């Protein structure tokens, strides 16, 4: 492949992003296979789609947190080192597993989803083995846990990554990409009860193409987390770490990612978030909402919220860019994988291929009588 590629999948309100690097390395950000057998389910069959690009292993699989819409189907698809029951068949291996410290520290009772529980076990197993894992943030509670497990902190500290630094081992020079970690912060875990969304992994990726395309992966960051991220980033004068050409919108276009109030027709973001979107977005940039179709009503409780969508549309117009929803691309009737080519001169280029034969040949045909 002569260019890097970024893919988003139509999974409803669920996140999965795949980064295919020029050097052949494959990085997956969350895995949530939401497809059901329902006839009108237009969500894509995630393993089938991923397997078109990934034949054996993933170099990195990142789980921003352990909620169902980020981990669903984890134990069906991956080779789990901690349990032989999950090692059979053509499961995909994970060379390096990246998880927030919260996953390790959360009590099982707080993890409602079985896949989340298995992810916790897998991360713990790898951490105990001191390889194949990176834990994001170093809260004191993690140190306590390490002590309780008789693991010396010094033996594993190279596996622990803090917010405000680049993920070690990855650079534009070597792999064509680098990651800057914005969240989780340790204090989010130490200062208050562990709260899922505040403890999720949020990062900025920068590619090595001519225009250094920047992607912010927003995971499920809510407004107060974003306020903190913006404040801290500005405090450390690292504003460029929040610049973006592509913004993977947090929380499926929920108003909660913008502010505490939904707003009547358009969510008004916090001051920090307004700065993040309206000042830090590059001209003709792309906002991607990993979500269901935007409703016509302003009254929906679950995301996506039309008010939030209106705000993102306004941002897109302001920067002459585009706001695209995974379940609406290229059309609501036939949502398909969103492929963004990271081109040298043109930068992020969302593929808008012909739909004539592609849709037909890309899927199994319906049953013939």
């Amino acid at each position, binding site marked *: 492949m002569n260019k890097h590629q970024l893919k988003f999948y139509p999974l409803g309100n669920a996140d999965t992003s795949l980064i295919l690097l020029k050097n052949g390395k494959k990085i997956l950000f969350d895995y949530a296979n939401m497809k059901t057998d329902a006839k009108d389910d237009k969500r894509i069959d995630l393993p089938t789609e991923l397997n078109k690009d990934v034949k054996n292993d993933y170099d990195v699989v990142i789980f921003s947190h352990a909620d169902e819409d980020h981990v669903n189907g984890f134990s069906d698809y991956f080779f789990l080192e901690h349990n032989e029951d999950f090692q059979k068949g053509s499961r995909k291996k994970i060379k390096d597993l990246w998880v927030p410290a919260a996953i390790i520290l959360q009590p099982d009772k707080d993890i409602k989803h079985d896949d989340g529980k298995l992810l916790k076990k897998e991360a713990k197993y790898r951490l105990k083995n001191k390889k194949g894992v990176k834990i994001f943030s170093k809260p004191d509670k993690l140190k306590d846990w390490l002590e309780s497990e008789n693991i010396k902190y010094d033996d594993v500290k190279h596996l622990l990554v803090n917010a405000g630094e680049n993920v070690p081992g990855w650079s534009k020079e070597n792999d064509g990409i680098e990651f800057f970690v914005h969240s989780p912060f340790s204090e989010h875990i130490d200062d208050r009860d562990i709260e899922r969304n505040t403890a999720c992994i949020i990062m900025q990726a920068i590619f090595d193409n001519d*225009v250094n395309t920047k992607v912010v992966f927003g995971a499920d960051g809510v407004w107060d987390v974003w306020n903190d991220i913006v404040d801290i980033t500005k405090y450390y004068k690292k504003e460029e770490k929040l610049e973006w050409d592509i913004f993977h919108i947090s929380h499926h276009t929920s108003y909660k990612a913008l502010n505490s109030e939904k707003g009547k027709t358009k969510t008004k973001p916090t001051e920090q978030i307004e700065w993040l979107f309206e000042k830090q977005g590059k001209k003709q940039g792309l906002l991607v909402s990993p979500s269901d179709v935007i409703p016509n009503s302003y009254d929906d409780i679950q995301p996506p919220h039309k008010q939030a969508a209106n705000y993102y549309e306004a941002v897109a117009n302001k920067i002459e860019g585009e706001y695209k929803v995974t379940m609406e691309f*290229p059309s609501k009737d036939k949502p398909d994988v969103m492929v963004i080519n990271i*081109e040298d001169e043109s*930068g992020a*280029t969302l*593929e808008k*291929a012909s739909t*004539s034969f592609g849709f037909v040949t890309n899927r199994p045909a319906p049953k013939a009588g």
Partner: protein
Amino acid sequence: MEVELLELPVPKTSIESLTINKAIDFYNSLMKSPYCKSINYYAVEDICEIICFDIEAELGQYRVNDIRKIERLCVQFWKDDDIIPFVYALRKGFPKVKHRNSVFNNWPECLCIYETPYEELKVTWTPNAFLEDIRNWLSKTAKDKLHQEDQQLEPFLLDFDGYVVLPRLINNDDYLQGFIINTTIDGKPFYYFRREEYKIESNSELFVLSLVGQPQTHGIINNKPRTLSDLNDFLVNAQINLVDSCIGILKNIKEKNSKELEKFLLINVILPKKRYENSSDITTDQYVFHTNDTLKTLGEKFGIWEIFKENNYVAYILNPSTPEKKQLETISVCSLKPLIEFDKYLAQILNNTTSGQDINFFTIGLGALGSQVFMNLCRSGFGRWTLIDDDLFMPHNLARHALKKDAIGKYKVNELSNQANYLINDNTFSYPIVANILREKRVDTLEKINKILQLSDIVLDMSASIGVSRMIANDKRFENKRKISLFLNPNGTQLVILGEDYEFKYKLDYLEVCYYRELLTNSNLIDHFKSDLNEVRYSTSCRDISSRIPQENISIFAAISASALKKDVCRKEAVASIWKFDETNYTTCNTTVRLGEEIIIVKNNNWEIIYDDILLEKISIQREKKLPNETGGILIGSFDMERKKLFILDTIIPKDNLEFPASFFRGIDGLKDELSRIKKITANMLTYVGEWHSHPNNCSIKPSEADLELLSWLSNNMSVEGLPAIMLILGENQKHTIKIKI
């Protein structure tokens, strides 16, 4: 960002009122596409229907050209479907990029989606593909990649009122010279510049003003200039001051006669162009504009002189002022599409002739095959040619010769040379010599031939004469010249190509006899000399006969010959091949003639005996088989009595030989039949030439007393025919001796 859109000045209609099938199909595709929105329809009664829509193309975040994420376009479908649907961009300020069609001023930008003629596109036209091609145009234009690096630069003008055929100008400051023939085709002017030497008639009353501009970056296709004012504006970008140039020539013409003033002005413009601002590679466009004013009326409009209508008197104005734009707008100009004269260079490009352009051919024989091979290569711009033949062009030649009826009664070479030189606009391309290379005695002609021969690289024999091919193979004048011979079999179904190698290991006469040997061994070629076509008399003399070969066969073989010449003359190896046309399934197949690796030449008693390892191998195998006995047979070959050369090629072993360890009696069983078969297959070109026998191992290959007696017996018999007696004695390891007795 606010976007201002152009409104179409035609009435809106509804989808139900659309009647043009392509428009309806396109509408359906738009409806199904996730990338199209807000569709409107317009109709101009009985002429066209227009569909207007917003479209998204695949765009990178950073764009070289300002293509927006959503562009409003419209497509104009024509009722008669005889013109390609036009695609217009309706956003005001749509960039003036490459690949737009020329439209009237103030019209929306018209995107040029296809290069292919619409008649061809129609066959595979689908509405969705059309839509995708439009989107692709936008995507690539955004990246400035629509115009490929290997694609020719865009012209400055695309739309013309007529045509002009121009000679190729070598330098930008070469001015047009010669005369012009102007005609009108379907109301459009067609001008044809001809060089003086081809002047037949001159109806040109034109005065040519040639101008050369400064290099410009390509990419913008301009509207066709309609007036001198438009043309002046068009040339400003090339830093040409047209008005000053016109004034200059008009002032200079003062002293000329009144006939000069009646000429119309033809403006020849050379516009250099480059791919990018900093490109050093410059190519040029040439454009020609014809004014509908004579110099006389132009001078008046420019205010240089005044004409008194009463007596048509021209009175010069002192210190004339520069003409105003309004005046220039009254002078209409006609834009002529420049077509470059067909010449050797264009011939080479169009035929993809990449080598051999300057090889000098000394060509003998310009009959049916020769003339067509020559004209094929002429159209390819291949080679430089001396043509030698003394034939007159006769009516029956029209069946298969490259010349036309007006050549009857003239020498073929003169007419062919004229035709070729005229065709590719190059008087040095070919040179005719009316001569019979075998019989020419005129001293001056011989001197001319010898002089040209010295400058020639290849001697090409297409005379179909063994006399000629044997002569050029052996005549000292042709030494150190590579010889190639092309000819057909008697009924015109097979072509033979024989060509010497660069080191002259394989001489033409050896290649010829090897081709006869090939006929004996290859069952596919057994009928090579068989002729089912009765010859036809074209006049009353006993020698006035011609063959009945179909022109299409000559054409096929002329094509193969031309192609082979282009390739083979550049190779160093010898060429010997036979092409057979199968008239049952219209295919041709090729046989490569087997040549010896080692060629042995023995000189004895003024005779030259030539044979090769193929013969030695064949008789050695026979010897080995019969050891410890001796064995032998007759030798098959060919005499060239004129040059005292003998080629030995093959053998026949009789079935009733008496073979002993110390003696051998050659038998006769089967000899007559086999010899007769060989003569028949080779049209008597191969025949009995002598005897061979083997000696056992550890024996001398010197002739024994019995052998010498045999040779005498043989000589007595052969001398009756005036032929030498040949005896070959073969020992172990192919050691051998050859005795010749006259």
